[in-house]
């Protein structure tokens, strides 16, 4: 049981890493960010008002593509601000809602 539990935790983390990578790749591709590689984006880094300097128009564009690629519905209200705070929070939102 312990082995199974550890195996599940390990796989949950892997899925999460893959998912975070996919989110980073999507951000760079969709927003056509020049000179930014997906691996340069920090999991916990602030997406908006921070290093990447994304704004609400970028958020709208991201939401549309995230919905389509990951088959989730992104929230349209204040929850959206929290969901979009970082790559980690976007990935967590996707995992929780798909």
């Amino acid at each position, binding site marked *: 049981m312990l082995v199974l539990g550890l195996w599940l935790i390990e796989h949950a983390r892997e899925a999460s890493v893959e998912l975070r990578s996919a989110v980073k790749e999507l951000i760079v591709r*969709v*927003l*056509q960010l020049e000179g930014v590689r997906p691996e340069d984006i920090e999991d916990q880094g602030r997406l*908006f*008002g921070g290093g990447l*300097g*994304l*704004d*609400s*128009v*970028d958020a*709208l*564009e991201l939401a*549309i*593509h995230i919905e*389509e690629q990951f088959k989730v519905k992104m929230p349209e209200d204040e929850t959206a601000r929290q969901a979009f705070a970082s790559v980690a929070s976007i990935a967590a939102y996707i995992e929780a809602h798909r």
Partner: protein
Amino acid sequence: MNADVVILGAGPTGCALGTYLRRRGASVTLVEAVERPESVVGESMLPCSSLVFEECGLDMSRYMVKHGAVFCRNGEGVRFDFSEAEAPQWTYAWQVQREVFDLQWREVARQAGCRLVFAKALDVDVDQGRLSTSEGDLFGDRIIDAGGRQMWLSSKLRLRAGDQNLRNSAVGTRYSGVKSVGIDQPGDITICSIPAGWIWIIPFGGGLASVGVVMTPNCALKGTSEERLLGAIAMSPDAQARLDGATRVLPHRGLQDFTATSSTFYGDKFALCGDAATFIDPVFSSGVLLGLHGARGLAAALDGGDLAAWENEYREGASVFRKVIDHWYADDFMTLALVPAQYQKPYIRRGIVSLLAGDVFDPAKKSPRSMADRMPHLAALVRTHGLLPSADGHA
């Protein structure tokens, strides 16, 4: 495909349809009222029409290459290059003089084995498959109207409806001595926005260009066709800069009531294609693209395909243009397009250019449809913040 098809109209749509049908084994008769093609509007081609040009073997090397479009208003302008589109298959198109282009299409259709009859259509009995013309009766398993905006068959069958929201009129002509100015690249179409509507300048090379104005109802432009066009040019410093010293070389051609759609595009024994099925507005040069793409799809649908699915796809593609055309007349397009370059988003330009290129039929291309849907919202953001949000520090 064992069928006799009679097609009204040997313009690009009719000839493309005839060519595609001949390849499928149908017997095709094209009926054309005008022996010598005229310099009609519908001169600015879109990159996505190249699918049909290539499949039908049209050699476009005699025409002016068009790499993009310039939109301007009151001395401000923006240029979009077709290379900015989403995964573009073609990054350029052409500006065509229709009296040359239409002759070329007729030759393509003839070589494909279409019979071309010069006659005026007088009456039709769709159930009997009989088209009565000035040169006698023609019979077909299916009669297809590709005869353009007069929507002859659709009107006869009482299927044609004008539009409640778009009731524009137009005046077109040609000028020589037309200049490229500022951001114009050779071969670009230029659209000059004015309070009364907009002016088009379509260059053919050597300073010759198609020039015209599309006017909204109740606009300030009145009088003869000449007075209205000159009045329009007087409203536009952008048009004046390009037409300064230019000379008009053709009589004016006037058009009105051109926005219309048929309630159905086919029946058991008839079909409609091109402007004869639906025409929206010339502002994004979508007419010929829709006609050619419609012709390609119709030939497949008639050859054991699905006519309902064909009409659906046709209307879907047209509806994407319809949205952007409505956004144009609501001023959303220009508001968004004129955001200064340093504040503009590359993906917004990508969505706009994909639309300008006519990429409305490929389900894999998300950006054009998404842009058509979001344009009003994005324009509202620009109006509220003056620029797109991050420019003034507002996230």
